[in-house]
């Protein structure tokens, strides 16, 4: 049964449940002189929820299990005996067979897949029908159960409240569970990677060239230090050299000097900058800043100046982060009680003395926390480096040289033609895992620092 038809049927059942629940409740109300805790529409909604939610929950679970069951069924057919042993190729053939079963006009690549397709179609429709029928039965059963519970004294109102709360909780859990799932898969794939490549080779190796991997010693060309260096150099050094001073100064200007009118339009403008898609910055870095810096580098005689330099990516990334740093610093400075500022001004300090001697020291923890968050954003940033810093993985202090970062390498590793269990692909997961751990730690430190500091003034 097509999913859309099924959903339509479930919705129809829900509507019927709603109407009949209402009618039943209205019939009860005819008895005079009684106060009801719930209105007929509450009873209707209660019945409708009981009709709609069980089949939907079931379908969600079923949707996850059915493909596996169907594949198992296919594997039992005689044609499946010719399949290669479990591995990448087998999975590819099975997934092609499934695609052919769902879309008859597709041109087959693998003859075996064509032969398996009919079996797939049979299995799929079988499990489809089983699932659909069960779902409808569940809906009817739920609706009947709810309908029978509707009595004059039945408090449908608080039940609905509970169902609503449960669905909200479920919705918020989904985000958390998804994250946990992603992390788990990262962990799993990384573990596979470290099964073939020693973790010390990866973390401390200084040679990175995944294009030429020696199968007997893959660790020799998968040392990630150049990537960490590039990431650190671009994200934490060059970008911060731009973002910290400019972000801080704009925050100081906005909180201390700008008239309320100017502040009223400058702050939103800065925040809009934070919403510019990073690919636009990447564009700018690759087409404008990169070539200009190369010319500059050549003009002042720097060897190896390239238009895809660490400097171009870092500078543009820094500009991108300025609004972020500025708004964090703005919050931190604004959180310092104005009595501090007045106290200093009343001593005869000028505004800039007040800022440098009282406000900034008092706001420092908040500012530091903001900078850490900014760094963690910068090192996770991908688009700009992909577009502007495509280069060799070298450890170089020369900002005019090319450089590469962890995120950029992940993109390269995964967009190439490689099977899913080669060390090259798995290395991407290991890189992702490392990056994740680093940014997680940075965020935790930053948030603790910021929180401590907020508490100090509240």
């Amino acid at each position, binding site marked *: 049964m097509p999913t859309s038809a099924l959903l339509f049927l479930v919705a129809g059942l829900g509507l019927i449940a709603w109407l009949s629940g209402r009618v039943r409740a209205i019939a009860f109300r005819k008895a005079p002189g009684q106060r009801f805790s719930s209105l007929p529409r509450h009873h209707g909604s209660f019945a409708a929820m009981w009709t709609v939610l069980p089949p939907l929950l079931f379908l969600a679970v079923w949707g996850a299990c059915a493909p596996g069951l169907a594949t198992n069924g296919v594997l039992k057919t005689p044609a499946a005996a010719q399949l290669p042993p479990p591995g990448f190729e087998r999975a590819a053939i099975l997934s092609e067979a499934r695609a052919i079963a769902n879309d008859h006009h597709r041109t087959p690549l693998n003859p075996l897949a064509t032969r398996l397709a009919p079996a797939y179609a049979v299995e799929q429709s079988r499990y489809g029908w089983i699932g659909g029928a069960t779902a409808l039965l569940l809906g009817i059963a739920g609706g009947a159960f709810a309908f029978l519970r509707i009595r004059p004294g039945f408090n449908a109102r608080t039940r609905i409240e509970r169902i609503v709360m449960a669905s909200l909780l479920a919705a918020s859990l989904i985000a958390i569970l998804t994250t946990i799932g992603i992390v788990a898969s990262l962990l799993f794939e990384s573990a596979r990677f470290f099964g073939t490549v020693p973790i010390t080779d990866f973390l401390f190796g200084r040679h990175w060239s995944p294009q030429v991997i020696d199968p007997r010693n893959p660790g020799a060309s998968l040392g990630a230090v150049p990537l960490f260096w590039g990431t650190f150099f671009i994200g934490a050094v060059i970008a911060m050299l731009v973002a910290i001073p400019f972000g801080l100064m704009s925050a100081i200007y906005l909180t201390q000097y700008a*008239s*309320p009118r100017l502040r009223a339009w400058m702050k939103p403008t800065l925040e809009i900058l934070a919403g510019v898609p990073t690919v636009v910055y990447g564009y700018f870095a690759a087409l404008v800043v990169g070539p200009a810096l190369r010319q500059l580098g050549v003009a002042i005689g720097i060897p190896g100046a390239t238009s895809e330099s660490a400097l171009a990516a870092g500078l543009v990334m820094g500009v991108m982060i300025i609004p972020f740093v500025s708004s964090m610093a703005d919050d931190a400075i604004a959180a310092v*009680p104005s*009595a*501090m*500022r*007045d*106290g*200093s*001004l*009343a*001593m*005869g*300090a*000028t505004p800039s*003395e007040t800022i440098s*001697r*009282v406000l900034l*020291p*008092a706001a420092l923890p908040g500012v530091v926390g903001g900078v850490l968050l900014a760094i963690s954003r910068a090192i996770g940033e991908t688009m700009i480096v992909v577009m502007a810093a495509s280069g060799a993985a070298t450890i170089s202090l020369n900002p005019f040289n090319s450089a590469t970062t962890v995120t950029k390498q992940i993109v390269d590793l995964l967009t190439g033609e490689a099977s899913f269990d080669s060390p090259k692909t798995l290395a991407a997961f290991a890189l992702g895992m490392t990056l994740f751990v680093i940014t997680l730690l940075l965020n935790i430190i930053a948030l603790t620092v910021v929180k401590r500091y907020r508490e100090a003034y509240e």
Partner: protein
Amino acid sequence: MTDKTILNDHKMTARNVSVWYGAVQAIGDVSIDIDQDKVTAFIGPSGCGKSTFLRTLNRMNDTIASARVEGDIRLDGEDVYAREMDVVQLRARVGMVFQKPNPFPKSIYENVAYGPRIHGLASSKADMDRIVERSLARAGLWGEVKDRLSDSGTALSGGQQQRLCIARAIAVDPEVILMDEPCSALDPIATAKIEELIHELKGRYAIVVVTHNMQQAARVSQRTAFFHLGQLVEYGQTSDIFTNPREERTRDYITGRYG
């Protein structure tokens, strides 16, 4: 205001001072003289403009974007609002202590050294040490903190913090000290200490104290000004104001009939 003793020895004079916050007038046409070596108390019901007027004396109203001051205020005959007046110097000469103690989140030593450092008053470390010790001693705090000068100023008790703020203010050797309800956040014992301190300081500085406490005004001040609805209703010798006020409104206020 025709009292003879009030006419001589004026440290500060204000003539026809009005203050607006945006379009709202907070102070109307106030004229008053602040005397050398005396304590002047500002009293009046809440919202009558005592703090506002006090802040005009060291131009702290400049920090409020909407505030606008008119009239003539002089310190030793110099126009406080003149274009060539250096606000930094003015505030060094006219110090201020706030209602809520507001020590900087620095050490006790650094709190007191803050002003001298900004104004370059100390020529050496030893000199600075002397200034810090002298200021803390005058503020009656030296004995309590001399062994923990490097502790944070914010770690002191409320009363100690307020005395630290007074020490901070006198460290730059001001000529006038403005205190806006310096005891309102303190308990009676700490209040008594501050009052004692005001007594000791009065021979050296002109002091203005805003207070809601009539007994306090009577105890510490020699001059009292009564404000009401942004106007200066009556100004004179404290003893006269409290025993024999000329204005009905003053009498009503100090006897607690409104306020």
